């Protein structure tokens, strides 16, 4: 019976859907049984890793090791091993920090905001997007720590009772806000991610045997799929999504305040929070895109992560890219309009000074290149999207570099004007962070269900409720049952 149903459904499902809602591509173009979906997602975890995965993992790990080596050297020798100087006190370190925090944004944003807006298409990508968030925040977190002159005293930034009469911390410092923002963001995202993972862990448990079963049994908290728990679970998930959404916005707002609250021309500006958030979403989605396009190829998820997912993300990139472009323009206008000679100089210097090359790289990557996405052919071509997403990530990295370095290297007193050039250690440290990120991500797609089984099944339900939309699926059932 099951076979028959599947057959028929499969047939008219494919035929019917376009007719029913011509505007809608199917969310999931999978063979239509729940078991099949479980197989598709859990399957890769049981198969031996493909050579592609192995190669990717090898590269990632070696990058990670390079990074670890250089960071160790830096911590043992001194920040002097970086190219910084008395004028430019931050460069690669904080650039990478902001870059990774930015990457870390799309994850929770996709999950939370799209969940709240009931955007069903999120289901195939939210799991890995959230994982990406966690790993990116880890990478980000490393930089504030190693950029300290005395990282072994980093615990000073926590307000713990001490013997210094109690000397607390400076709650007025944006850096301290960062400490709280980043750790909160990491914790909440982790909880959100793990809560979403539990039912799927149970699924894996119930198909596994031996040690694996015990491990996943431990990890899945004894989940039985009870409907009572499910309904409570839905509430919790909704709450977490509701909490995560403003959190996502607050984190990059606070990161932007590292600059906005300072006096340095080019930093001291009020448009930074929205500007940074947009930028973060922009870069975040680009990174999700990069990862998804790779993942669906390598893990064979083409039918779960469909062109429609890619296209939707491309659209969001156009929008956020536009916002970022607008911000660039606004900065210049305000610099001129403010009448502050320092502001004006800073921005003229940005576009024409020693670091003009970085500025124009940024503009062409972030403002010009996304305009190609107005063409549907490009929006729906994974190859093109892949290239574009990489370009955008390069551009967003340069955005942070431009903001930090060009503002610092020529500020108020011309006597102190200087320059900056990275050293090998800094470059290797940055590579290391990419190594860390991809190592974690590749492990993730191997050992955990990279796509939310439960949610995809739920969506499948709607997909199968041919045409009747989200409403009561019952009538559709009868038809199908005939």
């Amino acid at each position, binding site marked *: 019976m099951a076979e028959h149903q599947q057959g028929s459904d499969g047939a008219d499902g494919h035929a019917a859907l376009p007719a029913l809602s011509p505007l809608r591509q199917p969310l999931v173009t999978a063979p239509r049984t729940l078991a099949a979906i479980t197989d598709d997602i859990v399957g890769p975890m049981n198969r031996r890793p493909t050579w592609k995965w192995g190669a990717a993992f090898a590269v990632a790990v070696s990058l990670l090791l390079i990074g670890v080596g250089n960071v160790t050297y830096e911590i043992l020798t001194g920040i002097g091993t970086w*190219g910084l100087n008395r004028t430019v006190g*931050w460069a690669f370190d904080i650039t990478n920090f902001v870059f990774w925090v930015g990457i870390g944004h799309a994850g929770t944003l996709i999950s939370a905001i799209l969940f709240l807006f009931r955007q069903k298409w999120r289901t195939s990508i939210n799991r890995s997007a959230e994982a990406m968030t966690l790993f990116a925040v880890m990478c980000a977190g490393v930089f504030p720590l190693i950029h300290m002159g005395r990282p072994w005293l980093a615990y000073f930034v926590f307000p713990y009772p001490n013997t210094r009469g109690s000397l607390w911390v*400076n709650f007025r410092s944006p850096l301290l806000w960062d400490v709280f923002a980043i750790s909160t963001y990491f914790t909440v995202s982790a909880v959100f991610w793990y809560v979403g993972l539990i039912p799927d862990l149970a699924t894996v448990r119930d198909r596994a045997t031996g040690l694996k079963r015990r491990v996943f049994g431990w990890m899945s908290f004894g989940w039985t799929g009870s409907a009572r728990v499910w309904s409570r679970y839905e509430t919790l998930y909704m709450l977490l999504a509701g909490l995560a959404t403003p959190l996502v916005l607050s984190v990059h707002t606070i990161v932007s305040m590292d600059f906005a609250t*300072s006096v340095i021309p080019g930093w001291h500006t009020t448009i930074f929070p929205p500007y940074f958030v947009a930028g973060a979403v922009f870069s975040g989605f680009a990174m999700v895109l990069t990862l998804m396009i790779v993942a669906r190829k390598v893990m064979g998820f083409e039918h779960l992560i469909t062109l429609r997912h890619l296209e939707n993300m491309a659209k969001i990139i156009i929008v956020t890219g536009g916002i970022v472009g607008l911000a660039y323009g606004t900065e210049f206008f305000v610099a001129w309009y403010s009448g502050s000679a320092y502001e004006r100089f800073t921005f003229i210097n940005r576009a024409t000074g020693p670091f003009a090359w970085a500025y124009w790289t940024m503009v062409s990557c972030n403002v010009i290149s996304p305009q190609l996405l107005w063409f549907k052919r490009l929006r729906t071509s994974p190859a093109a999207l892949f290239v574009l997403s990489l370009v955008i990530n390069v551009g967003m990295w340069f955005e942070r570099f431009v903001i930090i370095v060009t503002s610092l290297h020529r500020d*108020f*007193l011309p006597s102190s004007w200087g320059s900056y050039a990275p050293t090998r250690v800094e470059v290797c440290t940055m590579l290391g962070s990419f190594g860390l990120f991809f190592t974690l991500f590749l492990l993730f797609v191997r050992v955990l269900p990279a796509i939310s089984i439960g949610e995809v099944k739920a969506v499948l339900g709607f997909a199968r409720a041919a045409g009747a939309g989200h409403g009561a699926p019952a009538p559709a059932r009868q038809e199908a049952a005939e």
Partner: protein
Amino acid sequence: MSKPKDPSAPAAPSLSSRRWWQTLDEVDGAPAACGDEFPDGPPLTIGMRAPATETRRDFFKLMGLSATAAMAACRRAPEQKILPFTTKPDELIPGVASWYATACGGCDAHCGLLVKTRDGRPIKVEGNPAHPVSRGAVCAVGQASLLGLYDGDRSRAPRLAGQTDSWTHVDEKVRAGLVAAREAGKAIRVVVPWGIGRTEQAALSRLAADYGDVEVVRFDTMGEREAMADAYQALTGTRLLPEFRLDDADVIVGVAADFLGTWLAPGPLARQYAAARDADVRGRMARHVQLESTLTITGAAADARHALSPSQIVPALAALVRALMDGATGPAVALARRALGVLPTSQTPSFVEALARELRAAGPRGVVLCGGDDRRAQTLAALANALLGNHETAAILATPAFTLPETTRATLHAELREGRVGALLFAGVNPLLSDPELAAALDRVPLTVSTADRLDETAVRCGIHAPEGHAMEAWLDHAPRTGVETMGQPTVAPLFDTRPRLASWLAWQEQGQGKGRGQDAFGFLQARWQREHLADAGLALQDHWDNIVREGYFVAAPADAQPIPLTADGERLAAWLAATPATPASALELVLHESVGLRDGTHANNGWLQELPDPITKLTWGNVAALAPSRARDLGLSDGDVVELATSAGKVRLPVLAQPGVAPNVVAVAVGHGRAAARAGAIAGGHGADAFPLASGQAAGARFAGVAVSLTATGTQQPLALSQTHGSQEGRELVREVALGQALAATGEALPGHGKARNGEATPAAPKERHGNGLWAEHPYPGHRWGLAVDLAKCTGCAACVVSCNAENNIPIVGELEVRRRREMHWLRIDRYYAGTADDPEVVHQPMMCQHCENAPCETVCPVLATVHSGEGLNQQIYNRCVGTRYCANNCPTKVRRFNWFDYPHGDPVQRMVLNPDVVVRSRGVMEKCSMCVQRIEEARAQANREARPLADGDIRTACQQSCPTQAITFGDLNDPASAASRLRESGRAYHILEELNVKSQIAYLARVKNRGEHG
């Protein structure tokens, strides 16, 4: 690149609104400048760290880096021992500083010093304010001479034929050699520095008495004093040096004389100069016109400056003398006429007429200061002064007569060539550095002795090296001015097995017959003083003596020296002048000059001076071939291009620097750099190039200025260790200037374009709750509120304050590579900006230290409260709390915060002794900056408390303030309206830097004043 701000601004008499030209060669972005080379660990430096910090830091590292730290944290810190004296000297209390008045050994000026010693080691040099000549002024070199004391590369024992040996052997050998010379009827020559004291002269006359044909040659590397003395000999018959007193001058004309930086006695001269130009006190301001070939800080300070090549100096002076002759009387007129007769005349430079007019108007209050070793120029300058009649006034006086039989360097060369010299003794001087010809002749002298403090270029060629140690280790007196003697007392026992020069002279007397033999140096010196000064004193000898030693100087009546009578015969003068070598004009003329830091190279091994940015070029750790920007452009050279300079004498490779203010056909090179590590010391080695080989070979006459030189590009590049690479103010009102008229008019109320330095307060000193332009009530400062006032009208950029700050605050030396990476650690820097045109620039200096802003941007952003505001308005930096995020430095508008990029290691236990025990030595990874010498504030407060009295204005003097030769810096309590600092902030010239940011700087700057004279 930004364009100059608003070229069409009206030419109001304020620098801010004058048109600014773009920086010359923007080094920014050039790979050479931003040094992308991979820093391999900490640079080789002699930065200083106390030994104890090591264990503690490792302890913390361990703590932070692993979870086992929890345990580690509870461990007891390693044990420390206390090793008391076995018998404590009575005068010494551990932890309490004692001060000794003594004389500076930095140069021939021998200014009066107060040396601070802690637990037996000198840790700071300050000026002796009571000293009648130096009046508390100490230059950068004097400040740094402290580090010279702890120079581990000094000789640690005497040497015989290169091998270390005992003093007794050395003395025997020297005495034998001297006797041999006498027996052989050969001459014995002693090469001594200028300005050796009376006692030393007495000691040398003992030698003369013992060994017959003993004559001394007074030597100064650049030959300036020599040339001057020759000129005065021609004019007066005696080889005297004029002593200038500028306090009362109305017109000061400097001719190739960097008298604020390197010439004769820069410290005292700068003090007098400041007095002469202090419009607030005098009601008028001496006008200063400078004629020079390369830009010096003296030229930078001048009201008008004319760039002349060396060959144009004599014609200009001749024209000036001619112009001064009409209306003048006295013997000078006739002499001048004769002199001008024999000198080649050229067309009069345009500015001379006006200059002569000003000088004539000033009469005896006009002074011409002439530098360089061109005897013709020196003679003309002397004549000009004579025509002004200031030989009879206090403007120029003769320095004390020299009592020893004397000969000149030229004669010595001749004698050496003829092989008439049986013994040649070098009293610490190092002629072979600059005089290769002498080196050649040296081998033929049986006995050669050097008392240099290290195995320098001369000592290494001498058979015997009898190291004299450091000035702070010896009793020695000096006579800076007739009637004034400075007492130099030792402040520490000799660190090494060295012996003061005076002792050596005495030890080398012929033994075994009659009086005064074997007398020790101190006894000899004291005996002389008792004979000459104390005999007639009413006081008990001992009291009087103690008094002199305590005060550090002695003024004998008459305090004033004799005027200089011109007694020369015109014929002989004319003949001599005609015979002196002229400075020929050439396509490209070389100027070798001393630099403010290293001077003639004597201090090449001094890290503080090597890392001291040159006040004008801002170059550290080396020298350059400075060209006029237009010339460099024509030659297609940009900063850092290495060129080869070739003169008839030799070749040198140097990087080019396009230096505004250098005369168009001049290449200017600082001497004293590029000495070999084996000769000068490890620190000097490998930085810059030795320019002396370029000096013309001739024994006398102009050797260092006006040498014809050729320049060829090598095509290679060498990054320059510049501490400042951008010369324009970009039209920002950082350094402000007012004209003299305005400055005098402004009594109290603000000048146009000058916010009164009040941070928008009702009164500057209202301790109650103050509302500024801020959003919230400001924090009250009920007690004291410390602040500085910096008078840019007085600051000459001489950088004495910078070195003083280094010494006081244990600031590490980071080395050339790190400076190239722009990581010098100076808490106090001097910003230098240009105005005007590239070839005729105006220069402004601005000492820049932590502004101790009330609304300090750095404090708000520190996550761990490592920098917060004190109840007395200080911006405190707590090193042990700092985790090193560098956010504060980024957010500092004046970029005065310095970060410890590495542990600046300090291998040398000798050098470590210079550390100030009242200031912590910062570890790697922490931020540091100017503390307004908070240790001095606390010291003074504790003192006042113990004496149960309130702190008085002047109790506290910051390191930079104390030794400032021009007293440009004033520290004080801003809550006390009567304090000097508060009063200065009330001046109409006062303003704050970046006031528009409302950071409320506690440092007030007083706008620069220029006396533009008849056309200004």
